[in-house]
C-alpha cells in the first residue's frame, strides 16, 4: 500500500469523500478500508464511523473487521515501516535475533513506533523469500541474508 504522506489533510479528506461516494454495498468494506489506510497511513476513528454510516453497518461491525485483519492499523505508522519476517526459514536462520537487535537499536518493542515518528517495527508471518533468510522489508524493499549488524546498518542509512 503506497502511502501518500505528501498530500495535505484537505486533499486527503477530499479523496476520502470520493472513495466513500463510490462505495455502496457491505461486500466492498475491506477494499474500502485498504484504500482509506492507503490515504491516511492508518484508519482514523472518524473515517471508520463515516464508512459505517455509508455502508449502513454499525460502527462495531466495521471496527470488528478492522481489528480482525493484521493489515489494518488504528494508529499512525512511522515514516519507514520495518517488517521483520518470522517465517519458518527465517526463524531457523535467527529472525528473533534480528528483531532483538532492531528493538535495541530503535529503543522500541515490536509493534511500536519511534518517538520521532521515523520507524515502525513489526513482524510478518512470512514474506516468501525463504532462500534469503533472514529477511526484512523496509517500505517495499526487501533486504535478505541479514545479520543483526547488517539489519541495523540498513536502518542507519534510512535514518539519514
Amino acid at each position, binding site marked *: 500500500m503506497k502511502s501518500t504522506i505528501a498530500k495535505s489533510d484537505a486533499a486527503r479528506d477530499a479523496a476520502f469523500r470520493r472513495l466513500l461516494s463510490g462505495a455502496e454495498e457491505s*461486500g466492498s468494506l475491506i477494499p474500502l478500508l485498504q484504500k482509506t489506510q492507503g490515504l491516511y497511513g492508518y484508519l482514523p476513528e472518524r473515517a471508520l464511523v463515516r464508512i459505517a454510516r455509508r*455502508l449502513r453497518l454499525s460502527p462495531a461491525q466495521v471496527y470488528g473487521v478492522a481489528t480482525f*485483519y493484521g493489515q489494518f492499523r488504528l494508529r499512525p505508522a512511522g515514516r519507514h515501516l520495518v517488517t521483520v519476517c518470522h*517465517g519458518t526459514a527465517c526463524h531457523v536462520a535467527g529472525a528473533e535475533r534480528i528483531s532483538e537487535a532492531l528493538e535495541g537499536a530503535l529503543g522500541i518493542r515490536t509493534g511500536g513506533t519511534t518517538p520521532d515518528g521515523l520507524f515502525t517495527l513489526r513482524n510478518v508471518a512470512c514474506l516468501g523469500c525463504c*532462500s534469503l533468510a533472514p529477511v526484512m522489508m523496509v517500505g517495499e524493499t526487501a533486504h535478505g541474508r541479514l545479520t543483526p549488524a547488517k539489519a541495523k546498518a540498513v536502518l542507519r542509512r534510512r535514518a539519514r
Partner: protein
Amino acid sequence: MRARPGWTVTVGMSSCGVAAGAEAVREAFRREIARRRLPAAIRITGCVGMCHREVLAEVSPPGGGATIYGDLTPERAARIVERHLLGGEPVREWIVADDRAPLHALPYFAKQKKIVLRNCGFIDPEEIDDAISMGGYEALRAVLAEGSPEAVIACVEASGLRGRGGAGYPTGAKWRRTRESPGAEKYVICNADEGDPGAFMDRSVLEGDPHTVLEGLAIAAYAVGASRGVVYVRAEYPLAVRRLRAAIGQAERRGLLGRDILGSGFDFSVALMEGAGAFVCGEETALIASLEGGRGMPRLRPPFPAARGLRGMPTCINNVETLANVPWIVRHGAERYAAIGTPGSRGTKVFALAGKVARGGLVEVPMGITLREIIEEIGGGSGTGLPVKAVQIGGPSGGCLPASRFDTPVDYESLKESGAIMGSGGMIVLDESACMVDIARYFLSFTRDESCGKCTFCRVGTKRMLEILDRIALGRAEEGDLDLLEELGRSVGIASLCGLGQTAPNPVLTTLRFFREEYEAHIRDRRCPAKKCRALFRYRVDPSRCTGCGACARVCPVGAVAGEKGRPHLIDEARCTRCGLCVEACPADAIAAE
C-alpha cells in the same frame, strides 16, 4: 513479439530475485550496455526456482546458445557486459548453465518435472505475447471450440488432479458438484492467499506466469458455468498483485477474458481482491466471508461452497497451483498427466525448499519421489556441515519427519500415514542445530495468533498447549506434561471446526512422536540438546583460547561481558540474554554454549 536486436540479457525479477538485488543488477546491465552502445535488449523473467543462486541472468548471443549466470552483483554484471557481450568470452566463474552443461542436466533439475512451473523463469510475465508463444490460452481456445463443459470436467476427473492447497480434494469432483448445484449465478475463486510460513509456490507462479493461472481459472469457469471470478491474493505479495492485475488487463484487451471470449459467446470477467492479512482466510468459507466484507471466520460445512458459496451461490474455489495444472492437462490429455505420479496422487507437486539446505528454491517433482531424493539429490543436503536432522512439511498444519523416515514417498496417503501432511508445499530442512521443542513452539505460537477465535478448543487449547511448551523451554515442566500436551493436542484436533484448528497440533504431535527424547531432556535434565532454548544453556569463555581482544564486549548489547585488555574475558550469566552476538564476534572461537 518485439523485435530483438543482437544480444538479449534476461534478468530474473521475482520477489526473491529482487530481494537479492536484481533491480541493481538490471540497472548495471542497462547502464553498461548503453554506455558501450551495444545492440542488446534487456528483458525480465520470473523465478526459475534456483533461489540459492539469485541474482540470475541469462545472456543470449544473436546466434543462440544462452549462458545463465548466477550470484550476480552490479559489478559482476558490468564485467559480463565487458567480457562476454563485448569480448565474446563468457565469464566462467559465475556460469550456472550453458550449452555444454544445460540447466536440466544440473543435479538440481535432473529429478524435477515441470508442468506448473514450465514457463516460470523463461517468459516475461509482463508480456502476454511471451505466454501466448509458449502455447498460452490454447487450452482455453480448444475447450471453447469443443463447446462441452461436461468433456472438460471428465478430462480433469480422468487426470486424477487433486487440490494443491493442502486438503487434496479431487478437483474434477469439485467442479462437477458446482456445475450440478442450482443457482442463478455461479462463481469461481482462485485461492492465492498463500499463508503458510515457509511457502512461496503460489507467489512464484503468479509472479512468473500469471496467464497460465488466469487460463486455468477461465477453463474452470466455463466448466462449472460461472461468468464471474475472483482471485484472492495475499496483500503481502505486492509484485504478484501488480503482475496479475497487468495480466488481467492484457487478457481483456485481447478478448481472452471479458465478454464473448474468442467469439464463443462465453462471458467471463475476473476481479482481484487483496487479502488483509489473516491466515485463516486460506480456508474456503473464511475466504468467502472476507470477500463479503466480514471477519474471516470459517463456518460449518456442509453446505459446501460448491452448493452455497459467495453470496449464497454455488462457488468453486481452487488453489493457484491446482489451476496452473489445468491448461497443461487439457492440452496434453488426462492420460499423460495421470501417467505421472502414483495411483492415488497423480501429476507433480511444487515445493518451496528452504531452511538448512544447500540448494534451496522452488522445485517441482513427480508425486511418489522420496523425501530423500528431494532433500539430498535436489537440495544437496544441509549445506551447513551439520547432518540433516528432520524436515518440516506442510507448515503449521504439517509435521516434522526425522531423517530416518526420508524414504517416505511424497504422496497424499504416505505423508498422512507418517503423521505429516502434503500441505501446500512448504518444505523446511532442519539440521542438528534445530531444537524440536523450539520448532513446535514456533508453529503453535503462529496458530495461536492466527486462530480466529470461533472454536473454544482452537482459541484456548492452542494457548494452553503453548504454555506447556513455554514451560518445557524454560526448564520448568514436570513429568506428565507431555501426556497432557498429547491429550490436549488430540482434543484441539477433534473439537475444531476448520482445518486451522484440526491440524494446529500436528507440529507438536509429530515432534513428540519422533523426538520424544528431546522433550524429555528438557524436562528431566533441564537441558536443551541443540542449545536453542535460552534458559537451558549458557555461554562461557574458554580462558585458554581467549586473547582478550575485547570484540565480544564491544558487541554485547547488554554489557554482560567484562575483562581487561589482553586478559581472558568473563560473561555475566545473569545479565546475558543468550543472543549469541559475542560467539560470532570472537575471532578465536573461544566462546561456546554449554
